């Protein structure tokens, strides 16, 4: 048995001949039953995916033989055409949570034979077995009251535009609605029957405004803006996101008689796929970028590692000969003394001039040996710094409270400089940002960097003080920490002698120093740079004006990417 024709019109128009046989009366009864069935709404109760109840009317409306054929469906969504899945799921969810009032909607359903048909629908939240469920009633689409009076041609046109996959709205030259199709009602979530033919376009726009489609803007402004769009001759494309969340591609096509046909295409799915593709592309690009960065870092690390190996190698090789130089210089000095005490009694065998000359030679010898020892020690210090440079602190990564670390390094550096020069004095301005908190670092290494910076600053202010001899000059060190979200900053500023651009350019070069020969190894800032930039993936910035100030800024990231937990170069 075929399901009754959904239009059902010939059953209702009463043009059945009276039966003359029993079969005829039975046919008549069957027809009557079919008639009743066709006007009965289809009833469906469901919760989530599960279909809980289905009446005969619904089975018939959707072309199934019996309710059981609907009840065995794996999901209620099987009855919804693919392009309406999004909106129906939304409508069901809202109904189940009790958000929806029982309004009539125009919707489409997939029939047993996979054809798609428009229905008018009422959704109502109900209680089913003690738990909430959705009751869905489907009825044949009724011709609009306004349309029933229209000539047959119009009805055929209506059927034609209803069959179109896009929303269609036809306006006459005065901007009154001439017709619209079911898809338009669905796309805009308009209840069926809202805009009978002849309704001015403005009413639709005002309706949209009142339900909040246009946000907070003034009603008249928005309406005149949209009206203007319609007046432009030619095809206008505009993408709009409507309140239901759908994205519509709206196109306007003017007709020869001055009217307009507006088509609405639901491009939500396309947009979603486009967005996903774009996101995937962006993700891939950002991963690629990260990989490139990592690769770059690895190259730099590799270079630095081989430089470190070279440094360590040189230092190791120099160490032993240097030890001999220092040892023999010291010993020679001792031996010379012993020799002199042995030769002492022979002194009076020499004449006055020879004695004076011998004394002079001996004192030169002593002084030379002292110089050999001094320079040997200097070389020894350089070798030790080089080894420290290449070996790495061996410290571990720890979450560390930064402000106390800075303060501790400051105290350490200040004591060291005061131990050398009791006269030295400077004032401190501290700006510690409590939001800096803890950062994952290698504490002894960062401490070393800070001590280095403070020591340099003390040196710079002391030098300026000595050079200017101005009683109004007050050596000042400003130490500031600040929280910059995913980074922290430590700034050390002094009002010392400052540096020229030429000095700044060479500042981080190993062995570059502005201190007098013998006072600095030229490895301090090079090592600091290595610790901050390569090990901690931070930044090291310098700004200075000669005889005014110098400012060093260390920026450390709060989180270091796992792939590149920094390491100091190791031999």
């Amino acid at each position, binding site marked *: 048995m075929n399901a009754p024709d959904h239009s059902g019109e010939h059953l209702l128009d009463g043009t059945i001949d009276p039966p003359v046989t029993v079969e005829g009366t039975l046919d008549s009864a069957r027809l009557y039953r079919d008639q009743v069935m066709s006007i009965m709404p289809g009833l469906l109760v469901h919760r989530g995916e599960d279909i809980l109840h289905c009446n005969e009317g619904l089975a018939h409306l959707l072309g199934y033989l019996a309710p059981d054929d609907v009840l065995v469906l794996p999901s209620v969504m099987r009855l919804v055409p693919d392009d309406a899945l999004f909106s129906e799921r939304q409508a069901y969810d809202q109904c189940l949570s009790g958000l929806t009032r029982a309004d009539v909607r125009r919707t489409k359903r997939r029939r047993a034979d996979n054809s798609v048909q428009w229905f008018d629908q009422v959704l109502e939240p109900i209680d089913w077995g003690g738990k909430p469920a959705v009751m869905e009633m489907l009825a044949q689409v009724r011709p609009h009251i306004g349309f029933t009076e229209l000539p047959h041609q119009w009805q055929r046109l209506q059927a034609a535009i209803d069959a179109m996959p896009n929303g269609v709205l036809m306006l006459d030259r005065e901007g009154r609605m001439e017709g619209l199709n079911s898809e338009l009602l669905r796309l805009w979530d308009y209840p069926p029957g809202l805009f009978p033919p002849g309704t001015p376009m403005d009413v639709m726009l005002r309706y949209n405004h009142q339900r909040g489609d246009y946000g907070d803007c003034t009603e008249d402004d928005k309406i005149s803006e949209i009206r203007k769009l319609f007046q432009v001759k030619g095809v206008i494309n505009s993408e709009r996101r409507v309140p239901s969340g759908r994205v519509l591609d709206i196109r306007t096509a003017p007709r020869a008689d001055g009217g307009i046909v507006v088509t609405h295409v639901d491009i939500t799915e396309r947009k979603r796929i486009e967005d996903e593709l774009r996101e995937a592309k962006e993700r891939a690009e950002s991963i690629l970028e990260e990989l490139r960065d990592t690769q770059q870092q690895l190259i730099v690390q590799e270079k630095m590692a081989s430089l470190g190996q070279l440094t360590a190698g040189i230092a190791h090789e120099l*160490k*032993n000969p240097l*030890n*001999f130089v*220092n*040892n*023999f210089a010291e*010993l020679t000095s001792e031996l010379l003394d012993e020799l002199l005490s042995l030769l002492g009694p022979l002194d009076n065998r020499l004449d006055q001039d020879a004695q004076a000359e011998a004394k002079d030679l001996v004192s030169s010898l002593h002084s030379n040996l002292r110089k050999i020892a001094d320079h040997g020690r200097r070389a020894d210090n350089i070798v030790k710094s080089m*080894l420290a440079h290449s*070996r790495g602190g061996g410290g571990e990564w720890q979450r560390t409270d930064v402000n106390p670390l800075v303060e501790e390094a400051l105290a350490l550096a200040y004591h060291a400089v005061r131990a050398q020069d009791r006269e030295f004095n400077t004032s401190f301005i501290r700006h510690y940002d409590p939001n800096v908190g803890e950062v994952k670092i290698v504490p002894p290494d960062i401490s070393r960097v800070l001590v280095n910076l403070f020591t340099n600053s003390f040196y710079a202010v002391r030098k300026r003080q000595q050079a200017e001899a101005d009683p109004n000059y007050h050596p000042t060190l400003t130490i500031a920490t600040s929280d910059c979200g995913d980074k922290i900053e430590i700034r050390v500023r002094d009002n010392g002698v400052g540096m020229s651009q030429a000095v700044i350019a060479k500042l981080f070069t190993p062995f570059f120093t502005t201190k007098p020969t013998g006072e600095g190894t030229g490895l301090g800032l090079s090592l600091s740079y290595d610790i901050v930039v390569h090990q901690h993936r931070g930044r090291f910035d310098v700004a200075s004006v000669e005889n005014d100030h110098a400012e060093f800024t260390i920026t450390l990231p709060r989180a270091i990417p796992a792939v590149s937990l920094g390491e100091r170069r190791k031999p």
Partner: protein
Amino acid sequence: MTLGILVVDDEPDIEDLFRQRFRAELRSGQVAFHFAASAEQALEALDVGLTPETFLVLSDINMPGMSGLDLLQRLRAQTPEVPVIMVTAYGDIENRRRALDNGATNLVTKPVDFTELKKLVNSIIADKQAA
């Protein structure tokens, strides 16, 4: 009694350095030095027997051929009664640990501080004589 100290180092100048540093002790006949340029030579010399008898061994770690640590292990097995002082490089924590694990009597860090070394040698001599 003259005490024999065997110094093992691949640097030939070590000999002059030790002879000059310990010149007072050498002159007074307190100590006598034997030198070996490698761990192999040291083992050979100990096998043959040295006069005066070796009382203390002082060895570098990094040497071509057999390393000072291997020598230490052999000496611990062959002549456990002879103390061995190892000379380790500045900051070489790994070798210091291994030297102590292998039974070195003591460690001296390069560059060698001879004042300290003399004290150490004297204390070992004192221990030995007391025993």
